[in-house]
């Protein structure tokens, strides 16, 4: 009967297996990141390498928000603000660090952070080290903000919390946006007194500032001139670590406390969970990873770090990913982040879908036969019909694009409408998100779906 003892032994292996078990995912993550960096980019080309980069950043953001909105069930809609804090701190450290240490702000990274091919540099340089430090610092700064904002506001519930986080996001955005002065010092002066300069920003009237290095944080341009350190390696290393932490967290005692708050806050309190403390914890961890994602975003090719881009629309994008994936599902959030990032790019030019039209037509025919069969034998047809609709929609999209092109229009111009339609359909057909609260590797998820296909149709009833 001693089940817990057996489970405890099973869950607490010896030192060596424990070490191996905790280290291998990290090693695997670094391996995958390096592979992507050196092998994936030449294959998929620069454009899709950039899309992949955006997907990675989105995954970090979505998975980190899952810890708050998914695990703990608190509705935070100011996630982009943490990203902004992380981005600016990381950007500031790289910018001024480069000035002080290397004498200029040019890209000084090695092969791991180079998205530009053919540079004759070592694998890792001190530029990379500076970048890595800046990412961690950005994350920590965001986490600190998370703590300061979370401590008072997480005593609120539901709508109130949403409003406070929204307000926080807007405050950060407006504060940074309004920093448009020409600030700070020449390289030489920076070297002489690195910290005085920043302090003087606040103590000297602005017309007495010495200005050769022009820097504005907000305004129309944002924080411009940051070197592009973010590469597939760095981004997917971040993705790996985020996924790992999220997964281990979900399986830990702390994670259980998070989930219990989502499931039933009063019962959770009655079990002795200090709900406010655990909510703040979730908030701080999530803010940290959002900050890291902000740092990666700030140093991406084609990005001008600008608070206008990181307002509440960005926060909503992240929420869409989390809800689409299923509130509480790590793998769901990651996959939804990929879909939400890649779909607008695919819709930009859907005509290539026609190249593989026989595949779609074949799939559609198969699904149609299966649906007729299911209907004839009294099984549930709804999931099959849903898939049929998806296949037909993709096919229709290809034809639509061709027809539109023939008529002199570009279907890509309407891609955000199509994207919105897809989201609405998704929420009607599967309101709990892709995986609900489960993970893609949970057998119960697939068992549930398989059963719903196999089971005879019930009047008005849906199986679990």
């Amino acid at each position, binding site marked *: *009967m001693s089940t817990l003892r057996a489970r405890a032994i099973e869950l607490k292996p010896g030192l060596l297996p424990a070490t191996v078990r905790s280290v291998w995912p990290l090693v695997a993550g670094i391996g995958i990141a390096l592979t992507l960096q050196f092998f994936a980019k030449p294959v998929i080309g620069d454009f899709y390498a950039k899309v992949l980069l955006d997907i990675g950043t989105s995954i970090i953001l979505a998975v980190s928000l899952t810890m708050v909105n998914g695990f703990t069930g608190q509705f935070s809609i100011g996630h982009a603000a943490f990203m902004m804090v992380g981005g600016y701190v990381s950007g500031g450290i790289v910018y001024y660090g480069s000035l002080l240490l290397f004498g200029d702000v040019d890209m000084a990274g090695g092969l791991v952070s180079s998205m530009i091919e053919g540079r004759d540099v070592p694998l890792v340089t001190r530029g990379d080290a500076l970048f890595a430090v800046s990412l961690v610092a950005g994350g920590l700064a965001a986490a600190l903000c998370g703590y300061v904002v979370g401590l008072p506001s997480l005593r609120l519930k539901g709508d109130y919390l949403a409003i406070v986080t929204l307000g926080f996001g807007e405050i950060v955005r407006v504060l940074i946006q309004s920093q448009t002065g020409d600030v700070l010092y020449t390289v030489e002066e920076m070297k002489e007194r690195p910290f005085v300069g920043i302090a003087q920003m606040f103590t000297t009237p602005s017309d007495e500032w010495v200005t050769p290095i022009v820097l504005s944080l907000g305004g129309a341009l944002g924080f411009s001139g940051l070197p592009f350190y973010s590469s597939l390696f760095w981004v997917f290393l971040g993705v790996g670590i985020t996924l790992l932490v999220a997964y281990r967290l979900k399986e830990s005692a702390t994670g*259980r406390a998070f*989930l219990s708050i989502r499931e039933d806050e*009063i019962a*959770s*309190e*009655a*079990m002795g*969970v*200090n709900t406010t403390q655990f909510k703040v914890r979730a908030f701080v961890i999530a803010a940290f990873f959002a900050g890291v994602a902000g740092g990666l975003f700030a140093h991406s090719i084609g990005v001008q770090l600008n608070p206008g881009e990181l307002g509440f629309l960005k926060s909503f994008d992240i929420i869409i990913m989390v809800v689409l994936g299923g509130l509480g599902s790590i793998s769901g959030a990651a996959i939804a982040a990929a879909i939400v990032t890649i779909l607008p790019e695919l819709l930009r030019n859907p005509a290539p879908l026609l190249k593989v039209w026989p595949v779609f037509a074949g799939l559609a025919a198969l699904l149609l036969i299966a649906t007729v069969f299911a209907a004839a034998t009294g099984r549930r047809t709804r999931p099959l019909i849903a898939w049929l609709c998806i296949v037909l929609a993709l096919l229709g999209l290809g034809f639509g694009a061709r027809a539109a092109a023939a008529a002199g229009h570009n279907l890509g111009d309407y891609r955000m409408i199509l994207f919105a339609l897809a989201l609405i359909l998704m929420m009607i057909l599967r309101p709990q998100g892709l995986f609900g609260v489960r993970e893609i590797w949970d057998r119960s998820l697939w068992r549930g779906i398989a059963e719903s296909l196999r089971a005879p149709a019930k009047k008005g009833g849906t199986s679990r």
Partner: protein
Amino acid sequence: MLVIRDLVVNYGAIRALHGISLRVERGRIVTLVGSNGAGKSTTLRAISGIVRAASGSILFEGKPIGRAPPHEIVRLGIVQAPEGRGIFANMTVEENLLLGATMRRDAAGIREDWDRALALFPRLQERLSQSAGTLSGGEQQMLAIARALIARPRLLLLDEPSLGLAPQVCQTIFRIIREINERGTTILLVEQNANAALKVAHHAYVLEVGEIALEGDAKKLAADDNVRKAYLGVH
């Protein structure tokens, strides 16, 4: 063990408890019966620290606990199995039970209580890896009680354990409640099913719109004609 004096609780402008006083002696089952909206659950919530009292005092073993947050109260040994079972539906039975041990750090003691709780509810043993939302009503109630037991309560608060259960299952639950008490846990039981509650309890309080209407030995109350008429539905 637990002494409540003149407890007043408000929900906004509505007064739920108009100054009630009650006392729970160590090692006994004390029940709080009454109809809907009498303030039974509110009393338990005030003891657990989930709602704040407007005035009055709650003493646990002589110490005032009226201002303590819920997690401190659990640490002191007062654990509640909340109304409507309050299980964590999307988590497994095992995870639910582990949450009972949230405030504890003594692994050996947890194991002991774990085994004991599962011995009381063998049904749960079979369903450890199942998600708690898929349990039947009776099993969910068992889970809620087992989870509270794993917190090793000195005073166990049970809120309507018979709510929505079939009579057969109800009997099992009440038998187990007595068994838990016989092993030394003091129990404060809130029930609408006054009949069953008075049978199992030693001492009883009858609550009526926020005030104590009657109190006394449970057996005597159950035999009292007025009580039978008003609360037990016997004519």
